[in-house]
């Protein structure tokens, strides 16, 4: 278990020392979201209607952007080889990296989301629902994305391929997440959506690290 904490600490330290990998996707997230009110016009009705979809798609793209580099630097400088050859179970290291990655991408975007929801005139119920949905949805996206990132490690133009591989897998999360916000804004209960998002998270939490671990071994064996 120590290695899990050691990995989280190491990755957070690396993120703090090299903040560009974290800040760039967040700035991208901010800009994409701000472009919509500019392009569509400041009418409260329209913005309110598209808020959930826009925020979710922006989160989705920003997550993809940040996930692409998740294993890349470890692969390039050879530390990933050392991780695979370590006495520790690879899956614990992978889990640690995933947790650190979520803390600096998914969690930060979740925390930023209420501010953006205000920009779109979302009601207070809706704001809470957006934050809750993102809290459950972003870890699922990081977990699924890590499979794609690990599979495309050795490739030159892996970034686009990750998007093609992973975006279709994000569809259920996107549908449930936006539906949850719509229900909240409409004043109806959204417990069911939350439970579904939670169930998706649990399933991916169980399976994705195994797939990511196998993908890393495949990518290194080239």
């Amino acid at each position, binding site marked *: 278990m*120590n*290695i899990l904490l*050691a990995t989280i600490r*190491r990755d957070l*330290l*690396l993120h703090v*020392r*090299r903040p560009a990998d974290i800040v760039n996707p967040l700035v991208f997230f901010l800009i994409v979201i701000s472009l919509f009110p500019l392009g569509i016009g400041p009418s409260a009705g329209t913005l309110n209607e598209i808020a959930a979809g826009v925020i979710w798609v922006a989160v989705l793209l920003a997550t993809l952007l940040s996930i692409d580099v998740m294993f890349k*630097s470890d692969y*390039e*400088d*050879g*530390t990933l*080889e*050392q*991780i*695979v*050859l*370590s*006495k*520790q179970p690879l899956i614990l*290291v992978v889990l640690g990296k995933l947790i650190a990655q979520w803390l600096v991408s998914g969690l930060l975007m979740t925390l930023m989301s209420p501010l953006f929801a205000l920009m779109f005139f979302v009601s207070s119920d809706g704001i809470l629902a957006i934050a809750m949905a993102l809290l459950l949805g972003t870890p699922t996206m990081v977990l699924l994305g890590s499979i794609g990132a690990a599979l495309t490690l050795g490739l030159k133009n892996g970034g686009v391929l990750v998007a093609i591989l992973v975006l279709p897998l994000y569809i259920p999360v996107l549908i449930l997440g936006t539906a949850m916000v719509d229900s909240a804004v409409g004043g109806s209960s959204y417990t069911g959506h939350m439970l579904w998002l939670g169930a998706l998270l649990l399933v991916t939490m169980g399976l994705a690290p195994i797939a990511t671990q196998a993908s890393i*071994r495949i990518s*290194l*064996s*080239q």
Partner: protein
Amino acid sequence: MLETQQLTCERNHRILFQDLSISLNKGEVLQVDGANGAGKSTLLRILAGLYEDFEGEVSWQAEDYPVYIGHKVGVKDAMSARENLMWLADLQASVVSQANIDSALARVSLAGYEDVLCGEMSEGQRKRVNLARLFLLHNPVWILDEPFSAIDKEGVACITDRINEHLSDAGTVILTSHQAVDFPNIHSIDLT
């Protein structure tokens, strides 16, 4: 210690080696010779368990994973020498103190560089940080791919001494080197 049977590896439609059988005991060195591109690094990666696209059998009588030093430097530029070694020791589940790490760094002439980020070091110094693991960890098997490249004469002597020490402790070493090396119990194979 190590037995391989009929090891065959083909890469890009070219057979690197065929029906290679190696047997290596404790306290012995295996030197892998060959021209550039002959498959030395691939063989070492196969023996380390990193490369899986081969036919034949590799069996180790060792419970521990090897210490593998490859072409990639294996240290993070954004971490200091001490942080890198602490993490690499964590990976081998070996409990080391800061004093152990500092003395390992001193052995590879990096005393005073403990807190310097590896990104600010020269190529040779980064390599030395990686080689400092040989003074820190106690894995019985070492797989060293060109351990002496980018290392100065004094460093080569120091690593050679350490390898001799490891051999007398019943350790096993597999290495490639373009420089002449001399160890007791050395076996060499030539991949041509």
